[in-house]
């Protein structure tokens, strides 16, 4: 486990415009180790990783490969040196197929022609290692978010890296897929590959990491062996203060049914789903990846063609009309931040108010920009969004802060019912507890929340009642004390099938 560092950063600093996000950071990565980098949202983890991967140049300081100073002019040089980065945000061309994306820029050729068959086979092989059965010919646009992440990982695995840098690879994965990924990481470690890894799921870090480096506000505050570094200690090191209980106490739901869905079918994704939501309730939705929770919720919110009955606050809402659904008081927070959630090129304030723009419009025609700025200032404070510059674009925020902005945007519309799909994707542990507090506060204020999440603890910790989906159908429901990981998993895997599945 000793030996010279394969890749090291020496006194690296980085500025974006006038804002410094990394301060004189030292960091080293040895062959055959899994090194975890943890820190709050906006601490500078992605920035450091991009510098190590050659995507960004340090403002000062330098890198060393095998002890010799290098400066990567581009990520291409880094890749030539065997350093491969998996981005936090997807780096896939959506109209292209899985295979095309995996081999983009390094296609296999025979003469001038592509070896499509071989590449497809290789693609299948790499995906199979990750236990992912995506057809390489499918376009990435047609994949679900977790499937896209698997493709990204497979793409990196195919590059025979000496150093593999993974920026929150598991943020969008469920426990099962995470397990598969961690196995692969262990395999690579055994092969002598150095792995740099970030995650806000500290359990994972404790499980896999050999060493842990903690960043806080761009400073390296700790670097130590992982053994004996408890999750609790990590969280404290990151946040710099004592953390209270992660989950707030659950509110007691009322009796009034505010949302009733009967026999909703989203063609190709969910069939004949029925459930109801009461005032002040937090309803969990669990299921394996691909169970169709997202699609069902998109159907409920009007974003997909669906058939069935949806009553919002006792009024029948036309399916397939998002605006009407929103006006009835139901909003949906998407799991796909980049493609459906935020306009990355737009300023923060415009992103924040887009959904609730009507509330900022005076006389039906004039947007009150002052009010927008105030709303942003409020949201930044309330949701603790780390934006050093309020005029920046949403794309300049760190991943977790984008998620917070998205939540702020959705809740700004002051809905009676919120469906939150993957509420804490990529959010640090401190912010997570904040978001949980928001959700609980919403419920306490008489709003109703549906939480769709692939993180079982989250569903269990928040929800009064959990609906479990399996392959597009509602497999069952667990409530109150009965909510447990094993109960949910049994349903999610289809073991407690109420009706025999038709052939």
């Amino acid at each position: 486990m000793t030996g010279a560092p394969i890749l090291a950063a020496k006194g690296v600093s980085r500025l974006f415009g006038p804002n410094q996000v990394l301060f004189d950071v030292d960091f080293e990565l040895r062959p055959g180790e899994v090194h975890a980098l943890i820190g709050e949202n906006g601490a500078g983890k992605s920035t450091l990783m991009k510098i190590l991967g050659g995507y960004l140049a340090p403002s000062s300081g330098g890198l060393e490969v095998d002890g010799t100073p290098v400066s990567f002019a581009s990520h291409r040089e880094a890749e030539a040196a065997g350093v491969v980065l998996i981005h936090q945000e997807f780096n896939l061309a959506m109209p292209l197929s899985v295979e095309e994306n995996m081999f983009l820029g390094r296609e296999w050729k025979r003469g001038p022609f592509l070896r499509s068959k071989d590449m497809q086979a290789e693609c299948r092989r790499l995906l199979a290692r990750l236990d992912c059965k995506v057809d390489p010919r499918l376009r990435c646009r047609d994949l679900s978010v977790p499937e896209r992440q698997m493709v990204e990982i497979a793409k990196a695995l195919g590059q025979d890296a000496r150093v593999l840098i993974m920026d929150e690879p598991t943020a969008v994965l469920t426990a099962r897929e995470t397990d598969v990924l961690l196995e692969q990481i262990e395999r690579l470690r055994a092969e002598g590959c150095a792995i740099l890894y970030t995650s806000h799921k500290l359990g994972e870090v404790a499980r896999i990491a050999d060493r842990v480096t903690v960043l806080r506000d761009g400073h390296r505050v700790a670097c130590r062996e992982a053994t004996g570094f408890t999750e609790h200690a990590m969280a404290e090191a990151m946040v710099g203060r004592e953390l209270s209980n992660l989950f707030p106490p659950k509110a007691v739901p009322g009796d009034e049914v505010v949302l009733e869905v009967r026999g909703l079918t989203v063609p190709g994704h969910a069939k004949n789903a029925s459930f109801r939501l009461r005032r002040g309730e937090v309803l969990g939705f669990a299921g394996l990846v691909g169970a169709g929770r997202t699609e069902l919720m998109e159907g409920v919110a009007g974003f997909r063609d669906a058939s069935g009955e949806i009553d919002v606050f006792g009024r029948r809402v036309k399916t397939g009309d998002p605006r009407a659904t929103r006006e009835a008081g139901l909003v949906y927070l998407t799991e796909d931040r980049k493609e459906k959630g935020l306009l990355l090129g737009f300023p923060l304030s415009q992103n924040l108010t887009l959904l609730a723009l009507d509330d900022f419009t005076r006389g039906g025609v004039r947007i009150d920009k002052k009010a927008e700025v105030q709303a942003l200032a409020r949201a930044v404070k309330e949701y603790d969004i780390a934006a050093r510059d309020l005029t920046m674009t949403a794309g300049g925020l760190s991943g977790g802060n984008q998620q917070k902005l998205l939540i702020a945007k959705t809740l700004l519309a002051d809905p009676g019912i919120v469906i939150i799909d993957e509420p804490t994707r990529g959010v640090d542990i401190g912010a997570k507890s904040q978001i949980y507090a928001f959700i609980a506060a919403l419920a306490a204020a008489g709003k109703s929340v549906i939480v769709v999440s692939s993180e079982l603890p989250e569903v269990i910790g928040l929800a009064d009642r959990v609906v479990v989906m399996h392959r597009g159908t509602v497999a069952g429901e667990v409530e109150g004390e009965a909510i447990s990981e094993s109960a949910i998993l049994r349903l999610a895997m289809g073991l407690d099938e109420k009706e025999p599945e038709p052939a």
Partner: protein
Amino acid sequence: MTAAQTDAAQTDTGPTAAAPRPRRRINLHVLGPILALAALIALGAFLNDNFLSAGNVQNVLARSAFIGIIAVGMTFVITAGGIDLSVGSMAAFTAGITILAMNAMIEPLGVSVFTIVLGMLVALLTGLAAGMVNGALIARVRIEPFIVTLGAMGVYRSLTTWLADGGTLSLNFELRSLYRPVYYDGPFGISWPILVFALVAILGELAMRSAPFGRHCAAIGANEQVARYSAVRVDRVRMATYALLGLLVGVATIMYVPRLGSASGSTGVLWELEAIAAVIIGGTVLKGGFGRVWGAVVGVLILSLIDNILNLASIVSPYLNGAIQGVIVILAVVLQRERKAED
């Protein structure tokens, strides 16, 4: 480097501490078209003394008005990620219909202001209807805008030729004398087209900057999915951009008809290209997501001035006018070129 670090150290107090201090650099993107316009004006004034005369300025502004009014509408269409190639032929068609309608109304209504007002109404409605047809095919039937409007371009152009029987549709002579002041006169010695153009530009700028409509257009152009998930009625807004453009074509036609009192199959040829070029010279992004109405206005003025200057200064073979135009158009945009992607 040290200076930068000191600077950074100041903001060190905390990621969120810094007040909303707007970081504004001198932005060539924004200044580009204005600089180009200023350079052209200087060139014109240098080449010919009459260039800045009231008469010439009026001429240039008034004749810019048609394409200018259309370009304002086009800005919204392009900002929302669309395109409209049919505006030139739509203008010809609208002018034709308007002339036919006015001529037909002389019989019952006589040569009166009322006939003219009704005629204007016809122009507005025709434009609006044509725009809505485009919009419906694009937003509801979901056909590629390029194809819809290319098809519409052919349709309107040939309908106009057909209405005119291959020739020219002319407004009744007396009616024209009555209508003429709408192009040539106006209050305070400023002709109507200029005033209407200014009004449309100001309203357009307000709508783009400060109204939900402009915001929604930009959102749709930037990422239609996100707009949809933000409860923007994507189809309706998209439809509205084309309808608005159609309406503005109607407005432009109202100013155009009194000028020469006629319309033919060759009316408005290439207006679409000029309008689109003006919009893009003005800094609007062709792929959508960002629009600048005042930029389009500046773009139209740049294009008109190039013609005007080439006519006023007989420097070269007139055969080369097109080449000079082309080069100036490219130069006008060089200043606001895309930043290096690495930025």
